């Protein structure tokens, strides 16, 4: 009897924990499903884009251009000049999350971002790929991702902050702020043909030092679901 009682208690507790975590995992996936469903309303879009850069060792002026997106993962920014863009397209994560069997989602609490209460969900891919860990701050009320952080094998940590306005109905942000890990830019003077420059003692020791670069994308004049032709994504055509 005593043995039965001592075995039953932990078993009940274990069942409770398993039930509780399963329920929470399902809830996390449900939240993500709501987000992907909302973004799924967008088959394609084009918009005017203004890009601003704050990258260590790179002095790059802001530039205007056009941006195009088409389901599932076609994305292109078209400009007249040189631009530095994040390695992944901004919808890389949402596209990856559309297959709910490919990851494990864990709820990790709540946090306020710009007066909105967000639910934090950690996502671990089930199969080995470039993405190691994803962390999403989701506004459940509007079913949008306000902030996401991806840890990738190839590019370190990338953080994206979304600021929504007029196109909340399609989960299309007015502003995106990318924060990317950057290795300090340094090339030999002779290679850069910069023989007359004087390197500061501070910077000469800083080779390889990592910093963070910020890229701000400001979107305007969205045109959604107008059946964009595939030709606009052809990089060889300007």
């Amino acid at each position, binding site marked *: 009897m005593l043995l039965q009682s001592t075995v039953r208690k932990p078993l009940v507790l274990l069942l409770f924990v398993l039930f509780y975590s399963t329920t929470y995992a399902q809830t996390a996936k449900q939240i993500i499903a709501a987000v992907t469903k909302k973004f799924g309303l967008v088959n394609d879009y084009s918009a005017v884009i203004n890009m601003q850069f704050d990258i260590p060792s790179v002095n790059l002026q802001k530039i205007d251009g056009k941006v195009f997106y088409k389901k599932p993962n076609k994305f292109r920014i078209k400009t007249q000049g*040189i631009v530095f863009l994040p390695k992944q397209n901004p919808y890389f994560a949402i596209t990856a999350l559309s297959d709910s069997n490919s990851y494990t989602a864990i709820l990790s609490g709540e946090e306020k971002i710009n007066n909105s209460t967000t639910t934090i969900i950690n996502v671990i891919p089930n199969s080995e790929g470039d993405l190691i860990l994803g962390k999403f701050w989701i506004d459940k009320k509007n079913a949008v991702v306000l902030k996401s952080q991806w840890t990738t094998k190839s590019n370190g940590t990338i953080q994206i902050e979304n600021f929504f306005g007029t196109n909340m109905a399609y989960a299309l942000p007015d502003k995106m702020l990318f924060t*990317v890990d950057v290795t300090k830019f*340094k090339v030999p003077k002779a290679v850069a043909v910069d023989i007359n420059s004087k390197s500061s003692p501070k910077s000469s020791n800083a080779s390889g030092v990592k910093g963070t670069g910020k890229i701000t994308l400001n979107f305007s004049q969205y045109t959604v679901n107008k059946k964009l032709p595939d030709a606009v994504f052809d990089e060889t055509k300007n």
Partner: protein
Amino acid sequence: MKALFQMTPIELFKITTKPRSYIGFLAITVIVLLIEFAFYIDGKTYLQFIMQTLEQSFTIQGNILNGNLICFIILQMLIVQMPLMVALVTGDLISGEAAGGTIRLLLTKPVSHANILMAKYLAGSIYTFLLILWLGVLALGGGYLVFGHGDLMVLKSEELVILRDGDILWRFLGAFVIAFLSLNVIATFSLMLSCFTDNSIGPIITSMSVIILFTIIGTIDIPFFDQLKPFLFTTHMIIWRNLFDNPLPKSQIITSITVLVGHIILFLSIAFYHFTRKDIQN
């Protein structure tokens, strides 16, 4: 003044009759075409090597290898060497006449010594201008022709400055003006030395030696040399690069231009002082 305008074309003609006057043009042509050819063949690999650290974090989009970048690289490589080409001609302007025995004949003309020296200086300046113009045509014109237009990625060892296409041409024009002033410093320096000797080798070699010495001092990062650098005209000759900074370091550029013009006036004044008092004895 009239005599000056009459004498200048004659002095320019004298320059054109000397084979050494074409060495600079030939050297510029060969070097620029070689660089353009090399970049046409292998430029993308060169840029990939430079950009590899940034390409780990970003996708770099746009036409990096363009005429503006080629012209900038050529200017960086050549402007250090061009003073030697100028000194080769301007160091011979007075001493060449002395060595050839024509200086006495020249000075018997009913033209003042000052006008003769000024005509030689103007002829040397026109030669320098033509050299810069030729460099501009080949580097910028040739660059646009082969590689097209685009934003300029100013390569520095620890920084990249990217300037938009529409914001570049005036910077190149400014750079060529500063390059002209810089080479004019060399022209007047070698002309000044030329007034003191009776053979051409002395002023040419001395000019080259001074340029090499000053350039070495300017390149080595030693605190003692850092104190000397502001007093060397070669330090201010590379100020053209600051035209490609963003924001523009205006006061630094104005200071350097003032120093360059000051050197031209100083060297010319010494040359005038000596040449107008020069007693030709043989």
